[in-house]
């Protein structure tokens, strides 16, 4: 399989950039490089990862300042043209602030920073981030956030549901959607969504922290593996046409 070129954006205050780099580079064996937020071009990357952390200290609102960093102009251009963008945790918050994904992430309803493993039921197994999953799959993935309470108005939530844009929901280990399994008060237990065209994913949980076998959990690999395989599928389609 050809190598996919990943770019990990680094903002002042990013702190999961190395985790993401390690997961896709050292563990998954693909090409990866850091992209400093002051750069103006993504150049030739296939996938942009906006990693977790506390960009700009979460001042004003999480992600509100980061979206004005020079590189974000090119991320928006890239994403709107169908380029693959993956925002994890703070990266998800940045994508909503930048208008690439709908909704917003509110303070956790517990008012606490929550750092633990959670279970995610895969809701859409046809996205390019979940093609390697089968219906009913439940992944164990860690979360670490204080503002992960996904909010959108009912009309938007209904649209997300109707379009299959809800990719992951917080569930019990066997897959039941319960209030108890919802760690932050998210509307309809939403943990991750894609945009309408399916090329941009935002999720609060950290799949990059569940890739290296030495950490005892490789469930996160399924997401990166799906993504990488989606490129081969697209190439096959392109070669046939």
């Amino acid at each position: 399989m050809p190598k996919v070129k990943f770019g990990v954006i680094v903002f002042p205050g990013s702190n999961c950039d190395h985790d993401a780099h390690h997961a896709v580079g050292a563990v998954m064996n693909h090409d990866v490089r850091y992209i400093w937020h002051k750069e103006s071009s993504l150049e030739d990357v296939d996938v942009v990862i906006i990693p977790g952390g506390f960009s700009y200290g979460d001042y004003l609102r999480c992600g509100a300042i980061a979206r004005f960093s020079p590189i974000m102009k090119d991320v928006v251009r890239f994403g709107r043209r169908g380029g693959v963008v993956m925002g994890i945790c703070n990266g998800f918050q940045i994508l909503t602030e930048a208008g690439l994904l709908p909704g917003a992430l509110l303070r956790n309803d517990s008012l606490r920073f929550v750092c633990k493993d959670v279970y995610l039921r895969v809701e859409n197994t046809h996205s390019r981030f979940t093609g390697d999953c089968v219906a009913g799959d439940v992944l164990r993935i860690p979360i670490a956030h204080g503002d992960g309470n996904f909010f959108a108005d009912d009309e938007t939530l209904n649209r997300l549901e109707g379009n299959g844009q809800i990719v992951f929901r917080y569930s019990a280990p066997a897959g039941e959607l319960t209030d108890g399994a919802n760690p932050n008060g998210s509307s309809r237990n939403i943990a991750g969504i894609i945009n309408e065209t399916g090329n941009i994913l935002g999720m609060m949980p950290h799949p990059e922290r569940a890739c290296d076998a030495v950490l005892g959990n490789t469930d996160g690999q399924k997401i990166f593996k799906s993504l990488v395989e989606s490129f081969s599928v697209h190439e096959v389609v392109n070669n046939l046409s």
Partner: protein
Amino acid sequence: MNRKSQASTFREWSVFHSTITVTLRKSILDPQGKAVEHGVHSLGYDRVAHVRIGKYIEFDINTNDRTEAERITKETCEKLLSNPVMEDFSYTVEEKKSKVHA
């Protein structure tokens, strides 16, 4: 330069001062407000209700044109200071006189 002639070149100049409050939209549960309300009730002020927590932001705008000052304030609220998905904002814009060199 002659000090006297310099002193005579002061003139009055106005700037505008904006004060902005940003709060969670009324339809959104504000858990911080709830927690503070609980504290207020613990102090015995049980008539206090609907506590909401928000943000306060202030700045000056170097213009002597009120319309422009109000436009800038509104635009910064819409584009950066608040997120319309989850927040409402309100502001006041007041004229401030100060003396500057002409």
